[in-house]
């Protein structure tokens, strides 16, 4: 059963996408979009929505905002790193799959974490089993689980823990 919070966030998400799609705005379109979004978010769909895992305390929202920039920074830095490896004449790569551990419990938190890992170049999430995430890493600098966790996961996890535990 979906919680009220998940439905509200779902409604807001759908409506914001509709508003972006119909810019420049008119009141009629916005109203119809709100009605349709409300109808969709109230549908009695089976299963629980991961959106309900999002915390809506001021601290969590502030961290969500910060996380955007943390992720952007990681994206740019790792893009430049991969670009450097691609252009380097010796192609300095040492690919491998490492096992990292996550402390996140909720499905939304894990979704965000694994997606962030995949979106930053140099690392791809291959598999998630229990608490273990298997990550393909283009240049393995720490083969053991603890070192790889510190290098790949902890920068994101610190924020995601507050956002959605």
């Amino acid at each position, binding site marked *: 059963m979906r919680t009220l919070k998940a439905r509200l966030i779902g409604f807001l998400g759908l409506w914001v*996408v509709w*508003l*972006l*799609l*119909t*810019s*420049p705005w008119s009141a009629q379109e916005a109203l119809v979009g709100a009605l349709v979004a409300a109808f969709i978010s109230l549908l009695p769909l089976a299963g629980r929505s991961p959106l309900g895992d999002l915390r809506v305390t001021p601290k969590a929202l502030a961290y969500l905002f910060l996380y955007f920039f943390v992720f952007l920074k990681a*994206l*740019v830095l790792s*893009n430049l790193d*991969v*670009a450097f*490896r*691609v*252009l380097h004449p010796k*192609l300095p*790569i*040492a*690919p*491998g*799959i*490492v*096992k990292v551990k996550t402390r996140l419990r909720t499905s939304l938190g894990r979704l965000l974490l*694994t*997606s962030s890992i*995949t*979106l*930053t*170049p*140099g*690392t*791809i*999430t*291959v*598999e998630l*089993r229990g608490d*273990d995430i*298997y990550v*393909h890493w*283009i240049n*393995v600098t720490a*083969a053991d*689980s603890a070192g790889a966790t510190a290098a790949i996961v902890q920068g994101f996890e610190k924020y995601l823990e507050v956002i959605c535990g």
Partner: protein
Amino acid sequence: MLAIVGAFLSLLGSAFFVLAAIGLLRMPDALNRMQAGTKATTLGSILFLLGIGLMRPDFLGRIIILILFIVLTNPVSSNALARAAHAWRDRIGLKMTPDALAEAEAEAAALASSTAEAASAKPTSEVQHDA
């Protein structure tokens, strides 16, 4: 002014596309090609689309939706591709020095074969490829 910034961002984005193409050609195996190719396109396409959005502000809303969808769908497809590539790692010649996932699968397979008499223990299809 905004148009110039937009054009510059688009140029930067297409530079990342070029890097992705070079990476596709130079990288040795499937997973590394994914790293260079599909990944450099994330920043590449984000910058490229943002640049177009700044040049044509009336498109900006739709551009943001496009970026959102790329960011949401790219990891899912990359993950599916990576899993498929890893399951076929012997046939497509993947080389990885620590392969924690293969070790975990080998452990699981050993555990499954040691309890093979129990009818419920069956190895996954990925493990069957290994042998």
